[in-house]
């Protein structure tokens, strides 16, 4: 097959591209320029689209021996990922921009462009596995549980999964670094990137404050009594305990946690730990790469954070809304996060959490 290797400049995508070449594919490396004003250098493990990263990607492509180009996806990234990140926070939800990037950029804008140009698919360095089955290509967890990225890929539909190749899912990260070393790739020991690539400082709250302003508002308890003030409701996260700056103690001295963010009234609601408990969640805009889910309840797992646990649940659809009912309560679940349903290690599908109870 003729495929595009999306190369971030990191070790994973470099090894993925090399493995795709060895598998006999005709591979062309592409680095996505996602910022219209890129930083020159990475600061620590943050960021993934600096000029230094694009040089690393180019060097890896040259060592592997494949052509390399840079595609400017800055406008698409801003519209599909960065603006979504801001508007979700402004609406009191907690978005996951890596998911949106996979959904809108890597496996949409890039895959569409690649197909139009005569390519068959896109290979990336994500840790996930696919299997060819009678139902088509299915998406599964990687063998390395610490690196498994099936959660952030669960926003892909069946067609997108059919156009995707993930060569690293069968290997542990530590072995990928060893392999990179043996392939002569200079990025073998480059630190993993985490945090949000377009917030290079790592200070999400500060980044949001700069862009959305910081309108002071009340912090209230569950009875609606004002017990403090915040500097911008969207800089708080459900379940957050630190940094609330409350001076009014609870009657029993127990700590308070953020329970709810109400953007319309710019209010942060706090309460006791046990009030964070969630036993069911509803998700909108479901996408299924696995078997279609109907109204009949089924047993499986739901995962609500990128590296969270797989929680035992019963799931079903109710009029375009995906519902998961947990066997055991979960503390602190923010709307806006993705709920991903698994059948064993197979991804069934995902939805954006819009309501919890």
């Amino acid at each position, binding site marked *: 097959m003729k495929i595009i290797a999306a190369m971030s400049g990191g070790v994973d995508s470099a090894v993925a591209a090399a493995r795709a070449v060895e598998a006999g594919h005709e591979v*062309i490396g592409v*680095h996505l*320029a996602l910022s219209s004003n*890129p930083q020159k250098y990475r600061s620590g493990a943050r960021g993934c689209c600096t*000029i230094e990263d*694009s040089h690393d990607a*180019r060097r890896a492509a040259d060592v592997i021996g494949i*052509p390399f*180009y*840079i*595609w*400017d996806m*800055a406008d*698409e990234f801003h519209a599909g990922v960065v603006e979504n990140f801001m508007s979700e926070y402004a609406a009191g939800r907690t978005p996951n921009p890596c998911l949106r990037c996979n959904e809108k950029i890597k496996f949409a*804008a890039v895959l*569409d*462009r690649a*197909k*139009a*140009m*005569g390519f068959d698919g896109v290979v990336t360095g994500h840790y996930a596995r696919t299997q060819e089955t009678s139902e088509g290509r299915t998406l599964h967890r990687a063998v390395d549980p610490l690196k498994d990225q099936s959660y952030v890929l669960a926003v892909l539909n069946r067609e997108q999964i059919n156009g995707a190749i993930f060569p690293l899912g069968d290997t542990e990260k530590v072995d990928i670094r060893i392999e990179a070393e043996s392939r002569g790739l200079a990025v073998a020991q480059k630190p993993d990137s985490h945090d949000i690539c377009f917030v290079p400082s790592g200070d999400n709250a500060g980044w949001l404050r700069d862009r959305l302003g910081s309108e002071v508002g009340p912090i209230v308890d569950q009875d609606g009594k004002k017990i403090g003030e915040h500097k911008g409701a969207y800089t708080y996260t459900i379940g957050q305990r630190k940094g609330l700056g409350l001076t009014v103690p609870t009657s029993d001295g127990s700590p308070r946690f953020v329970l709810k963010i109400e953007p319309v009234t710019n209010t942060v609601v706090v309460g006791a730990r046990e009030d964070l408990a969630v036993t069911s969640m509803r998700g909108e805009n479901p996408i299924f790469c696995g078997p279609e889910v109907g109204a009949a309840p089924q047993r499986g797992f739901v995962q609500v954070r990128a590296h969270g646990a797989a929680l035992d649940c019963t799931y079903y659809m109710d009029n375009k809304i995906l519902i998961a009912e947990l066997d055991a309560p979960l503390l602190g679940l923010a709307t806006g996060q993705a709920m991903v349903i698994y059948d064993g290690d197979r991804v069934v599908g995902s939805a954006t959490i819009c309501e919890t109870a």
Partner: protein
Amino acid sequence: MSVYLDHAATTPMFDVAIDAMNTSLRKLGNPSSLHTEGRSTRKDVEDAREKIARVVGCLASEVIFTGSGTEANNAAIKGLFWNSPKKVIVVSSIEHHAVLDPAHWLVEHEGAELIEIPVTTHGVIDLDFLRKVITARGSEIALISVMHSNNETGVIQPVGEVVKLAGDIPVHTDAVQSFTKVPLSFNDLGLFAMTISGHKVGGPLGIGALILRRAVEIPALLHGGGQERDIRSGTLNAPSIVAFAAAVEAKLYDATKIAQMRDSFEAGVVALRPDAVINGHTAPRLPGISNITFPGTQSDSLLLLMDSEKVSCSTGAACTAGVHRPSHVLMAMGLTDVVSQSSLRFSFGTTNTQPDVEYALSVLPIVIERGLAAHAVGKK
């Protein structure tokens, strides 16, 4: 089959230049040393200087070797500016960044005022504009720099007219693309300064020259041993200088043959894609450069697809991150940023043959078809 159509970026080195360079590389001696070896290498360098001067149309002492065309342009723009009490710099709006960027740097750091000469839709500078600027501000102008021909479109600029209008104002021309391709004489043009480069003319990378009129002294960018009229210190790069001269002296550039190939390519493109627009074709152009807009496409997709079909060409401008950017040259000619990002430059040279033209034309339909499709999904 692979076809190299990017001779404006760099040219294959001529065999005579490689041979001259190899011989020189095996030879010991710093040209500034006073002993036998030094004198021998010095002789090679001065022989080379005279050969280049003959082709440039200048005195040997007017040839100052530099590490690149970019360095020569920087030395000329900054040097002529610092050499004058005047503060206005006049350049064309379609200069290479090696002229534009030092000019902008002087604005930001040295109190210069920059006036850019616009170009017509044909890609030629507006001489009326220049005439008015000189009439109104002539006494304030430190230097004028207008390239001899443009690197993206190949359009030849009326440098002789510029010199006439300039009177006593020093004029520099970046002749990196024109040198050895079209008739050109430093003396006859009456220039103060001119830039040439080795690797654009069948010579090696890493060698260029600033041609600077005798007795015009400019401040040095590199200080040290005082080589090259005290303007460009640093041990002379004898092997590259010798090879540069060998390439220039060989006179292997067949302008008529190259222009015929370019013209037949353009005729073929227009026959295949009647909506294709050849930028600057109404003006006098260099024999080898063709800049073509393919409406509804994006240059970076086209380049990838051409490269996949083993045809090497260029998109023109890219930023430091390697992202393709609209060409300031095409925009100065009145193209929109979208249209200017739908253009490719094909540049022909001495190693091309008519079968190369036919091969490039044979892959064009599929490349354009896929390029149109890729652009269409991007706008979805």
